């Protein structure tokens, strides 16, 4: 052991500043340190500079980026090193795990070779020895049948498995420190916890310090020892994880924690932080959070506050007004759910569900994707993307459609939007009209009533059109009187909480949240009765998410809309939806009232999904025991008979041999859950269903 290693931080960053060309000050004087075996979480929203910190530590910033300050690994300064010298440290003493496992592995090399390469670069081991070690590492990160899988290429792995490969690569040379940049953001919730476990175990095996960079407060809560919160390129609060979550002192941190939707429902309604972060190339003087801060005073505008000790030892916050932040509730007061169903609004919500008109009725919908073609062009193998989906949405109601990526949620949405006879069977009725019977004109007329909002407002708005033109387009298409269009555009902007001046802007002149508001306004232009929302908040920062969700709820109450809310985030769905449908491999496995399903999930898959959602509270999060869902690789044989879920089912595992035969042989049918109307579940051994 290195004599300097004792009692010394492994990774020490002092006063780091990063300036991208031409003059974007991404990081301004950040200091941090991580000790051996410790985990430091760096938390911030997009544009806070957290990734720039990670890349600066690794020396991987784009060329001609100005970096000042100091980065020391075991006392050795890294910023002065040339690329050649740095490359002897990177991958050996200092390793990194990147965000997107789909693009972070070279597509043309076998994964075993890619890991072996990391070993051979630094140790000069023989090819055979490095390959053998690569297989060992794959085994360590939990890849089954590692020897065979080492010869496979990245596209033959699922996202979670690829991230495991990345971790195997990172720990291949027993690094001193691992920098992980959003390692679980691109993964399904069911995999996040598992990948974090792998990272923790692998990190512990190597005795490495971990710098965990993320926007997800829930994820860090159970993983990090210390947390550093970044805003506009500065560290604004740092401290032990318990202090940050339980006693945050910087208004921004308080706001971030308050804006999180939570599964456990302990902290009331999420509160949005109004406004957007300042532009990094033209920072105003003073605290950059001032414009968004509810307790800002004139002193805030004079000078940027330093990170100073506050509260318990080790806790520091950059705020001039720390006495005022002692009580979090005083900064961002929690509001009880406002009574959105105003007397003059439609009273649809109060009437019984079944007595309301069905806005959308989907019956036994099928959709296959042909995978292989025979020489004659006939489809031979097909993937059942949607395999018998049935649900309905009543007026004024929100149905949340959840499931992991690839379960067929988006395909369902696209089939509804097509408004034709479903190609592979099924029946879709919109407002009582069967889409199979529609002609061109009828379809166009019906489209007015069904609008859509997509996930990414950056790509779903035409960058060359002004906001006014974007909002006018649906009106013009459907023959809205031209002279009234400008008024209607203004009305729509007001409806979604934008200023009249926004009409003249282009989408790139708006923030992410504002863009999504434009997308919502566009969907509202024709006064539809049903809006399909495809992950409408997934690409937004948490502080903005809450605002968009509030807007959606308010609009629903005021305009009597019905939503189909497709999402992977179960906490968000709980906030928004009345009913929830859980999809797995093209089927709905459980559907019912949100309250009932979340309180007492009947299907093992629903249980596992709920279990996987992290709670943004370090104490609660660490106490939880979790059910792990095994990840199924894409080339696993497909199950044709019996229950599709049994390969991954935790309940199947504990069943006796003879009880299992039912799961192996019979496809479970939808059955009602005792005592609950409109609650269905497809499991032979569902909880609350008499067998």
């Amino acid at each position, binding site marked *: 052991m290195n004599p300097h290693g004792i009692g010394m931080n492994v990774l020490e960053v002092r006063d780091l500043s990063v300036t991208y060309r031409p003059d974007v000050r991404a990081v301004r004087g950040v200091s941090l340190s991580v000790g051996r075996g410790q985990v430091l979480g760096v938390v911030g929203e997009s544009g806070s500079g957290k990734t720039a910190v990670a890349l600066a530590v*690794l020396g*991987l910033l*784009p060329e001609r980026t100005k970096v000042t300050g100091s980065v020391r690994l075991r006392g050795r300064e890294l910023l002065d090193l040339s*690329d*050649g010298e740095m*490359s*002897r*440290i*990177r*991958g*050996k003493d200092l*390793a*990194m795990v*990147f965000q*997107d496992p789909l*693009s*972070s*592995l*070279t*597509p*043309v*090399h*076998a994964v075993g070779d890619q890991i072996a*390469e*990391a070993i051979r*670069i*630094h140790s000069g081991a023989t090819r055979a020895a490095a390959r053998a070690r690569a297989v060992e590492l794959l085994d360590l990160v939990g890849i089954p049948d590692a020897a065979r899988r080492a010869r496979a*290429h990245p*596209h*033959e792995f699922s996202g979670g498995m690829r991230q495991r490969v*990345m971790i195997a*690569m*990172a720990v291949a040379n027993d690094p001193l420190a691992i920098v992980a940049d959003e390692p679980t953001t691109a993964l399904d919730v069911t995999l996040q916890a598992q990948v974090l476990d792998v990272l923790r175990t692998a990190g512990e095996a190597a005795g490495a310090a971990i710098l965990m960079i993320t926007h997800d407060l829930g994820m860090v809560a159970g993983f990090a020892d210390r947390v550093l919160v970044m805003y506009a390129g500065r560290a604004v609060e740092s401290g032990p994880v318990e202090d940050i979550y339980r006693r945050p002192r910087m208004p921004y941190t308080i706001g971030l924690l308050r804006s999180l939707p939570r599964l456990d429902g302990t902290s009331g309604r999420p509160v949005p932080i109004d406004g957007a972060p300042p532009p990094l190339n033209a920072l105003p003087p003073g605290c950059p959070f001032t414009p968004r801060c509810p307790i800002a005073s004139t002193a805030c505008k004079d000078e940027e506050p330093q990170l100073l000790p506050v509260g318990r030892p080790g806790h520091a916050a950059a705020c001039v007004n720390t006495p005022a932040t002692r009580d979090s509730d005083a900064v961002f007061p929690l509001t009880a759910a406002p009574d959105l169903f105003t007397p003059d609004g439609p009273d649809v919500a109060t009437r019984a569900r079944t007595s309301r008109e069905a806005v959308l009725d989907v019956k036994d919908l099928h959709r296959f994707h042909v995978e*292989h073609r025979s*020489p004659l062009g006939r489809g031979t193998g097909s993937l059942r993307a949607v395999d018998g989906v049935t649900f309905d949405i009543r007026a004024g109601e929100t149905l949340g459609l959840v499931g992991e990526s690839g379960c067929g949620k988006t395909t369902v949405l696209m089939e509804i939007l097509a408004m034709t006879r479903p190609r592979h069977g099924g029946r879709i009725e919109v407002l009582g009209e069967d889409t199979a019977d529609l002609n061109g004109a009828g379809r166009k007329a019906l489209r007015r009533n069904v609008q859509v909002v997509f996930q990414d407002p950056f790509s779903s708005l035409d960058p060359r059109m002004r906001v006014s033109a974007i909002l006018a387009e649906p009106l013009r298409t459907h023959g809205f009187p031209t002279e009234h269009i400008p008024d209607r555009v203004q009305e729509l902007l007001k409806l979604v909480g934008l200023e009249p001046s926004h009409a003249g802007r282009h989408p790139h002149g708006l923030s992410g949240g504002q863009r999504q508001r434009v997308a919502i306004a566009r969907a509202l232009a024709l006064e539809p009765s049903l809006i399909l929302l495809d992950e409408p908040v997934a690409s937004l920062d948490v502080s903005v998410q809450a605002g968009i969700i509030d807007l959606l709820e308010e609009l629903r109450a005021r305009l009597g809309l019905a939503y189909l809310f497709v999402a992977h985030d179960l906490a968000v769905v709980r906030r928004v939806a009345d009913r929830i449908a859980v999809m797995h491999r093209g089927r709905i496995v459980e559907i019912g009232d949100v309250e009932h399903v979340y309180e007492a999930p009947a299907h093992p898959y629903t249980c596992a999904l709920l279990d996987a959602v992290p709670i943004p509270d370090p104490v609660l999060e660490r106490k939880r025991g979790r059910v792990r869902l095994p990840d199924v690789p894409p080339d696993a044989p497909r199950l044709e008979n019996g229950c599709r879920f049994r390969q991954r089912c935790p309940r199947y595992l504990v069943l006796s041999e003879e009880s299992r035969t039912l799961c192996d042989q019979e496809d479970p049918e939808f059955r009602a859950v005792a005592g609950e109307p409109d609650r269905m579940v497809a499991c032979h051994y569902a909880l609350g269903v008499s067998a």
Partner: protein
Amino acid sequence: MAGFLLRRLANYAVLVVLAASLAYVLAACALNPRANLMDRSPRPSASVVETELTRLNLNDRTPLPRRYLTWADGVLHGDFGHTWEGQSVNGEMWRRAWVSLRLLLGGAVLGGVLGVLLGAFGAMRRDRFPDRAATFGSYLLLSVPVFVLAVLLQYTAERVNAMTGARLFAWVGESTPGAGDGTFGGLDAFADRVRHLLLPTLTIAFGQAALYARYQRGLMLDVLGADFVRTARAKGLTRRAALLRHGLRTALIPMTTYFSYTFGMLLLGSMFTEKIFGWHGMGEWLVDSISRGDVNVVAATACFAAVTVLLAGVCSDVLYGILDPRVRTRMR
């Protein structure tokens, strides 16, 4: 993968038949061998013209479908008919195909390799002096017609020859007659051939390299900021090693298609180079036979072109499969 290739081959075969047939019909309609024959001096008699045309299956008084069927029947039996001079097209085509291949192979390969390296090099030093110089150079080469480039090279070679006093370069034909009679026999003959190849090879290589460099630079720029290149650097590869081992390897994949097809087209399209350097290859043959109204030769060269494109297609499929594992899975 074999099944996939067979399927592709069947598709290509249909295309070849269509292309060749269309080319024949077009050539038979557009060219006028009768006029050419009549223009001969001494002017042949009408009956001689008639029998000569009929013998060569070029008689425009025979209905076009009949002529086509006669030709197609011959082609199916491996016989492309006779040239204007009455020689067999087959023999001449093979001879000329080999000449073209000898002339072009070196230039195409050299041009491809040079172009890829230059493009990758330029992308890695994007917007710095080497990149700008490479960009300027390739635009210059692309905008200079081949015949100008060839003549410039010839002029330079002449100066070099004059300065050194030795015959370093030669640029007429494939070889000097009697070159193999010297002291070293076969070795001399070989050296003579290489000498003759130098200039045309350079001419072709320059043009090709300029084109490939532009494409490769674009492809390389795409992978420059790719996540997997960053991963490779994070493992401890230097920027250059990461770009060459991971970036270039991936960016090369789309080039295989481009290279295969360009080479296929080059076999016919190098008439300028062949003419200027006095090589009697396919390109020259096509141009000459069009001006002579030699329908059979035009149809045969069109057939040849179609088959080279087919082979290029198959080659690119195979190469793609070898280089890209993702395609291999899809091909199953």
